[in-house]
């Protein structure tokens, strides 16, 4: 019953994420922000219920609830502090896509396990999602810059988001390393494929920050490279969190 409530709230949140996207396309800023806040609020409640029934364990298999929420919060923080050029339709399109994806293709429910009962497991879990949310934001900014064909954002703005993404992902990886050491005595558990998904995403964006060494790369090429990063994130981070197609329920 309680887990249904959590799922139900998430399904409703996905409806409001979709409405935000539609209203943003219609350029009605007043309503789209209202819908966005309602969606975030519902998503937040579903996450709180999820955490309430897991703590002190970490709901490590319920990442799909957290990804749209943390991405949206990161975007709101960015919108508050940075540019008015950023279009909410681009930002909300990713929230909408993620929430609908996890709504129609939910992962099977697995119980959290006792080994997650440590702060390092929580940091590993949450910091990875924050890091990837920053990368997704960069993808949105690059896409908007490519579509509008004007350099409406300076590269330094995108680079700063990538730096924060790398910062949080690194904290996540090191927390995972310490967690793994405390649990098994090895800093890397090689039978877990997610180790290599972290490495692949981390090195990709580390590589991006080193592109200045190749002086021939222009802004458009950099945008395409970031969009390539979005494909990598989809394959190694988002797709593993999906399950078989399910028609979502919206009533208790």
């Amino acid at each position, binding site marked *: 019953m309680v887990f249904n409530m959590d799922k139900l709230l998430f399904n409703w949140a996905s409806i409001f994420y979709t409405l935000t996207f539609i209203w943003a396309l219609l350029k009605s800023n007043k309503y789209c922000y209202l819908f966005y806040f309602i969606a975030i609020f519902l998503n937040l409640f579903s996450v709180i219920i999820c955490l309430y*029934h897991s703590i002190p364990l970490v709901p490590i298999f319920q990442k799909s609830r957290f990804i749209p929420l943390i991405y949206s919060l990161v975007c709101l923080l960015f919108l508050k502090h940075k540019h008015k050029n950023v279009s909410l339709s681009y930002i909300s399109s990713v929230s909408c896509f993620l929430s609908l994806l996890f709504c129609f293709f939910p992962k099977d429910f697995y119980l959290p396990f*006792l080994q997650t009962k440590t702060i390092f497991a929580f940091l590993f879990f949450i910091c990875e999602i924050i890091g990837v949310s920053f990368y997704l934001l960069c993808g949105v900014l690059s896409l908007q810059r490519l579509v509008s064909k004007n350099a409406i954002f300076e590269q330094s703005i995108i680079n700063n988001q990538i730096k924060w993404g790398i910062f949080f992902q690194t904290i996540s990886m*090191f927390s995972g390393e310490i967690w793994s*050491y405390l649990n098994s005595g090895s800093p890397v558990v090689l039978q877990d494929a997610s180790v290599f998904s972290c490495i692949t995403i981390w090195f990709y964006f580390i590589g991006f920050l080193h592109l200045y060494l190749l002086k021939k790369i222009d802004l458009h090429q950099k945008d395409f490279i970031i969009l390539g990063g979005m494909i990598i994130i989809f394959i*190694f981070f988002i797709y593993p969190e999906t399950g078989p197609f399910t028609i979502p329920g919206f009533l208790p």
Partner: protein
Amino acid sequence: MKNIKKLWDIMGNVYLSVYLIVGIVINGGILYFLIKNYPHLFAPINNIGLIEWAKTYGLSYMKYTCYFFLFLFFLLLFCINMFICTTQKIISIFRTSYKNKLSRLSPHIMHYAVILILLGFLINYLFSKTNTIILVPNIKRCVFNNICLSLQDLNIKYSHTKRLFFWDKRAISCNAKIKIEGFKNTIYKTIGINSPGIYKIYSFHLRDFSPKITSGMSSKEYVVLTVKKDYGIFFYLLGTFMFIFGLLIYVIG
């Protein structure tokens, strides 16, 4: 001497760094799918070490494991390249008088930290020794020929809260008091899940225990321990702290 200088320049080429990163990304992606589909081929590395694994699983399943060897080769080249590039940059930073030297040094601190971390991992997989044993109360078991362990006390707490209804009557924490003989003095360590006992380069990790559920048929008390003799821990812990220090300066500065 000329050849060494030429090799130094080739290995420290900045273009090589970018190509190696691309190689690591592609190889990491392939390994993700291989480990997802064949975890049993890669899991033994943690227990038997890299050399034994390479001689057995590595050679027997070369079709799949070759990507792991390639990954190690890329990492080795990457470390050499990073060491040369970073050393050259640091020399030039110290030769020039910059106002904010620490901020300029931050990426290079991270580069050296990555080398230390990877060195720590390599030492761990090459030289560390691992032993897994089952302990039942008051029966002594020995590992590495000279360290004898016995389970003195087992304290398991079970969850009874409605909040964790799916965890009802299941163990939520476990503390095992272990007597360790074989060092100069006999020592006692209380260990739990994610809370190992550490003594010098030895660490004692609680991997499993019983009974886990209060209801149903009662099972006997036992704990499964992993005893690890790890020489690499100092390197990767030092590297980790160095990296975080460098990263903080880089992001904030």
